[in-house]
């Protein structure tokens, strides 16, 4: 088949991984080049395929038999439909750019080539996941991505905090992964197939099956874990311990997007289960609001961005939960661009100033021009200022919410947009404007290898929204549904106006509080003290988990250990004592019985010999007597 080159897409990053991991020491700094080259090749291969799908909206797939079971054959292969084409394009492009950026960022790191090996492995997994045609292959690459996340978050494992963060990330996503696996199994039991293609038909034929909602909810658990939804969002902020390129790649653009992609892929299933949709939408909304709330008071650049990611993912999940496949995936794509840009910008700031705490920064606009400008563009995008990409995608989501049955969700999302704009520009104003708060910091701009990708992504952040905008007649929304319904896409001016107002309002408030009247911020803090404390403490999620889950487990572990020790030691001691005891008995027995026997033998012999000795008296008359008596006896016996 002509699209079989899709098989090659994940292959090149895999090769790069193999080379970098085994010959890392030998290739040294060239490992970056190998990795970037592989990624770029993947992009080059995928581009024609994407074009092909984009032009026709057709679906291309191919598969080979992988595991023949009784009654069902698992077939592995690729599936290129509008959804996978979109994500494929986004992943390869952003991935390549981030790798170019990290070449400069990780320049002085001793484990340079290993970093790129891990990143290539991750690219391999992500690309396989994107083009996979069934849940099994999807799950396998999902797990590999989890591994890469663990390896990359804990890349600087000498830091205790990094090691703990990577462990936390892995374990938390694991909880979600269990749900996902159970969901896959349940789905298989319900409809008998694991292929994405034909999922809709299979689901419709089993529409009354009570297992389907369960399957969907369980599958969604995987998304909760991987995409950092409430209540498994706790790992994402801590994952910022990893190098910034990692944060950009994995925790902004791609891996966390995989969860949303999962839900999008399962969309036919989702649509068939209204209860599941409610669950999804609820979780998404809570996540979006909660994360934005915490981001209001965060002081670490990367933490603000992490919570922002969580919040935006909440948006996407809400959209999908309300039936807006186009809205959710559209936002996914645009978010990848501006969030990656934001992270890379933050990395640039860290690289240039050596600190992540925004309370120490300020006035960087003049010193780091490229970084500042691109960061500003991305912030405008995320705040939803037209005509940047973020506005169009967020507007789609708000529209979906507005049109849904629940107006509560719409108002919460509007409020969250306000908060989003506010905290983003709080970050911008505190970091780049005003006077530098720490005189010791001498900021300098980052090298070209880092700033060039920033500009490329900035361009993307600006224009990526256009395909879904009225300017292109909502091409994207039609495209995502395979150009099936060519109907008019309604545009609600009211929603658009309200989202613009809200965005600008947030920016203005941030401007007031952080540029014009900084003292006002403090006053507001005092006034809203309880809320402020709640936000500052991240709503005490970590403390809650530690108290309810971690501590009991540790306690249980200690008990087990103590028990184990007592039992094992007890057994060993008992054996020792038992042996000693039996040996004492044995000794006694040996002494008395054996010696006794020997003594007895001697005594016995002596006794009998003493007795028998008496016969030999030496007295002839004795002998005669005995002879006579014997004769007498014989005589008696014979002659009786």
């Amino acid at each position: 088949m002509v699209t079989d080159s899709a098989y090659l897409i994940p292959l090149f990053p895999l090769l790069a991984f193999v080379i970098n991991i085994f010959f890392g020491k030998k290739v040294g700094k060239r490992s970056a080049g190998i990795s970037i080259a592989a990624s770029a090749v993947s992009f080059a291969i995928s581009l024609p395929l994407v074009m092909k799908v984009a032009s026709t909206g057709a679906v291309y797939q191919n598969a080979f038999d992988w595991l023949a079971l009784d009654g069902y054959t698992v077939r592995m292969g690729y599936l290129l439909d509008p959804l996978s084409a979109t994500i494929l394009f986004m992943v390869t492009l952003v991935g390549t750019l981030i790798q170019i950026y990290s070449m400069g960022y990780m320049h002085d790191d001793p484990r340079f080539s290993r970093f790129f090996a891990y990143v290539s492995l991750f690219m391999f997994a992500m690309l396989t996941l994107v083009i996979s045609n069934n849940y099994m292959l999807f799950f396998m690459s999902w797990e590999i991505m989890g591994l890469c996340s663990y390896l990359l978050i804990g890349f600087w494992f000498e830091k205790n905090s990094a090691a703990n963060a990577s462990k936390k990330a892995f374990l938390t996503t694991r909880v979600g992964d269990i749900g996902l696996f159970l969901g896959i199994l349940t789905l298989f039991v319900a409809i008998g197939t694991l292929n994405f293609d034909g999922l809709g038909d299979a689901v419709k034929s089993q529409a009354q099956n009570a297992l389907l909602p369960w399957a969907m909810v369980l599958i969604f658990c995987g998304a909760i874990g991987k995409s950092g939804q409430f209540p498994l969002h706790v790992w994402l902020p801590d994952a910022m311990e990893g190098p910034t390129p990692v944060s950009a790649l994995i925790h902004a653009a791609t891996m966390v997007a995989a969860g949303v992609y999962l839900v999008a892929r399962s969309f036919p299933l989702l649509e068939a289960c209204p209860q599941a949709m409610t669950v999804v939408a609820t979780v998404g909304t809570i996540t979006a609001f909660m994360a934005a709330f915490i981001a209001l008071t965060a002081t670490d650049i990367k933490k603000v961005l992490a919570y922002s990611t969580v919040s935006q993912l909440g948006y996407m999940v809400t959209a999908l939960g309300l039936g807006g496949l186009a809205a959710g995936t559209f936002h996914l794509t645009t978010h990848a661009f501006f969030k990656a840009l934001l992270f890379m910008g933050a990395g640039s700031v860290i690289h240039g100033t050596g600190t992540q705490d925004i309370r120490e920064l300020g006035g960087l606009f003049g010193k780091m021009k490229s970084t500042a400008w691109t960061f500003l563009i991305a912030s405008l995008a995320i705040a939803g200022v037209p005509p940047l990409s973020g506005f169009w995608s967020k507007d789609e989501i708000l529209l979906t919410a507005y049109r849904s049955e629940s107006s509560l969700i719409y108002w919460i999302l509007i409020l969250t947009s306000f908060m989003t704009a506010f905290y983003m520009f709080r970050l911008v104003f505190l970091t780049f404007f005003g006077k530098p708060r720490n005189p010791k910091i001498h900021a300098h701009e980052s090298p070209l290898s880092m700033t060039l990708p920033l500009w490329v992504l900035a361009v993307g952040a600006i224009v990526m929204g256009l395909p879904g905008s009225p300017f292109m007649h909502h091409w994207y929304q039609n495209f995502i549904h395979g150009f099936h319904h060519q109907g008019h896409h309604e545009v609600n001016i009211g929603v658009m106006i309200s989202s613009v107002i809200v965005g600008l309002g947030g920016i203005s408030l941030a401007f007031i509080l952080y540029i014009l009247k900084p003292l006002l911020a403090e006053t507001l803090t005092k006034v809203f003290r309880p809320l402020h404390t709640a936000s500052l403490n991240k709503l005490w999620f970590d403390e809650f988990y530690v108290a309810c889950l971690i501590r009991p487990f540790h306690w249980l572990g200690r008990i087990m250990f103590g028990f184990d020790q007592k039992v094992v030691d007890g057994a060993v001691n008992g054996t020792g004592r038992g042996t000693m005891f039996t040996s004492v008995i044995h000794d006694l027995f040996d002494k008395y019985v054996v010696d006794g026997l020997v003594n007895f033998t001697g005594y016995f012999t002596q006794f009998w010999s003493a007795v028998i000795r008496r016969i030999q008296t030496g007295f002839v008359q004795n002998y005669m007597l005995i002879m006579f008596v014997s004769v007498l006896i014989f005589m008696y016996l014979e002659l009786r």
Partner: protein
Amino acid sequence: MIIPLEHILMFSTLLFAIGVYGTLVRRNLIGILISIELILNAVNVNLVAFSRTTALSPDTGQIFTFFVIALAAAAAAVGLAIVLALYRTSRTIFTD
């Protein structure tokens, strides 16, 4: 025979028993020899009694008796010679 055979046999048995008692019990060497003579005599009486009553020819028992007497005499002679010799060396004729 005037006396029934059983009586004579009983008599000789008693004599024999007395003689045996004597050989077993006497501490004196010569006393033992005397007892032996008793035994032999009892035997002789037995022989003669039988030859007189149940034997085919009457001379068998008597001839036998002659020889027994002769041998008894010989035994006594030798025994007493030994006693004399013994007395010379150990100055006692007591067996224990």
